[in-house]
């Protein structure tokens, strides 16, 4: 319980150190993190992205419009990608299952593109971001109610 609570704090401290010295190569950062590996995710890793930045943004029904909350998540992602220039990511667009399969493949791609375009506009090199759509075939939430569907209308960034 205590270790769990501590982990994000330790990681935040590391990130702060990184951002104050952007030249520090990530390899060195993780090299100094022998204690960090017990205290939290490896900086620049998927776990780091999930725990400290947020790996996904959410959309309204049948929409690829980025909300204010989605934009602030993507702002954090672009900052994080700036700190780890060696990291490439895939943005996967997903939909709820309240639509048809083929249309949702295109809608998922639209969402992935919206997130990708925003990151690129914030200065991330487009060659570091690939996109894919899974339509309604890779839901995060397994239920069938409005809450589950809202979770499944997303674009998820993952480290490649």
């Amino acid at each position: 319980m205590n270790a769990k609570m501590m982990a994000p704090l330790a990681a935040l401290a590391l990130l702060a150190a990184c951002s104050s010295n952007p030249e520090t190569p990530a390899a060195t950062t993780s090299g100094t993190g022998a204690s960090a590996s017990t205290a939290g995710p490896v900086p620049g890793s998927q776990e780091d992205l999930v725990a400290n930045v947020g790996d996904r943004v959410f959309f309204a029904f049948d929409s690829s419009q980025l909300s204010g909350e989605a934009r602030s998540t993507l702002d954090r992602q672009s900052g994080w990608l700036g700190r780890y220039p060696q990291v490439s990511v895939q943005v996967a667009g997903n939909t709820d299952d309240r639509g048809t399969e083929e249309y949702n493949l295109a809608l998922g791609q639209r969402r992935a593109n919206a997130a990708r375009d925003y990151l690129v506009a914030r200065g991330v090199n487009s060659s570091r971001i690939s996109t894919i759509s899974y339509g309604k075939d890779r839901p995060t939430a397994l239920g069938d109610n409005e809450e589950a569907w809202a979770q499944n209308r997303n674009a998820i960034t993952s480290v490649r």
Partner: protein
Amino acid sequence: MMTGETKMIGPRSVAFGRRGLIAGGLAGTAALLGAPAGLRAQPAPAASGQSAVIDVNRARTEPIPIAIPDLGAGAGGEAGRLGHDIAQVVTDDLARSGLFRPIGQAGSVQASGPAGDVPNFSSWRAIGAQALVTGKVEGAGGGSVRVEFRLWDVLPQQQIQGTAYTATQSNWRRIAHIIADVIYERLLGEKGYFDTRIVYVAGTGPRDRRVKRLAIMDQDSANNRILTDGSYLVLTPRFHPTRDQIAFMSYARNRPRVYLFDLGSGRQQVLGEFDGMTFAPRFSPDGSHVIMSVTRGGGSDIVVVDLASHSERRLTNSGAIDTSPCYSPDGSQIVFNSDRGGDQQLYIMGAGGGGARRISFGRGRYATPVWSPRGDLIAFTRLSGSTFSIGVMNPDGSGERILSESFSVEGPTFAPNGRVLMFWRETPARDSRGGGYSSRLVSIDITGFNERPVPTPTDASDPAWSPLAG
């Protein structure tokens, strides 16, 4: 006793595919059988009773009572078993159509003397049969069987059809389906759909890590086979008109693209070179082209790929999501769905692209249009509030009829005679772990009656009905 004219006819006219199916072609022959010599000259049908020959509309309200005793009833051994099994498959095919009412099973009636004799019509009439099937099975050497069948009109006491099929014994189910198709066609005046297959996506495992495999089976769910190993996601398979190739979408190598799958060799090949994701493929009626969607920017365009030259042409360029294209049976038009007007609706354009006009104006969003092989209807999925529906409309958008509604139904596909639709239905999860979720295939008559589950070994989705063999 098999006197009467016996004429050999070519394989093509008996609907044995010339191209190989998975298990190899049904290399067979068929011979027409004349009426037995013992059949007396009959009075005109009107004088002696109502003919079993009617049309589909009448059969929907009053299914044709038909007796299908075991072929060669009473014969023992291998032939007797096969005669029983074939009669069972024919019976099941006709019963499932909803247009026939099989009666008098299991030797309830003393059929006749030896096969080929004139049936004892009065005893069949007594149990209410209007049509009767007789026949026999015998070994033909070299692993082949000869299956003889006759279709009788009971009240006018006439032979409607007599045919003998010779084929490899392992293909006995196909012989049975071909017999069922002949019965359907001779009694209802239009082609059947029993010697056909379904390609679909078999689903296993939890919803967030669903394993999806291409699968193929006969339309009666027999001979189910898995075609891909599940290491990559597959979606939306569709048959080539010759039934020997499938177009589908695959996530192999994490690169979602449309592929062609050759059923004879098992070989797969990516279709075309596109930067964007390709999806929603469908063959042209003559099999020479594939139309599909390609993502571009925030939308997707419909493109056509020439399978011989591999040249590509863009047919739409709206910037919206244009997808789920399907040709009219004459190949001159394409129906598709697009959100160019704000939400998903159905549009029709010429096969060369351009001039798209909207045809769906009912309540809700419209998707997955498929043109009936008869040309008279377009089937679709309608999404309206919390309800999904399968429906049909005329190609000009008029005459919309909803056939089936529930939490989730999707993706109709027509039987090759345009009389039956298959689609898939999902049952919603009861809890947050996905418990109770299922996805199953369903068939329904295009008038909305005779809805039936289509059994599959696992969950199933994305069915596509094959054409009849050439």
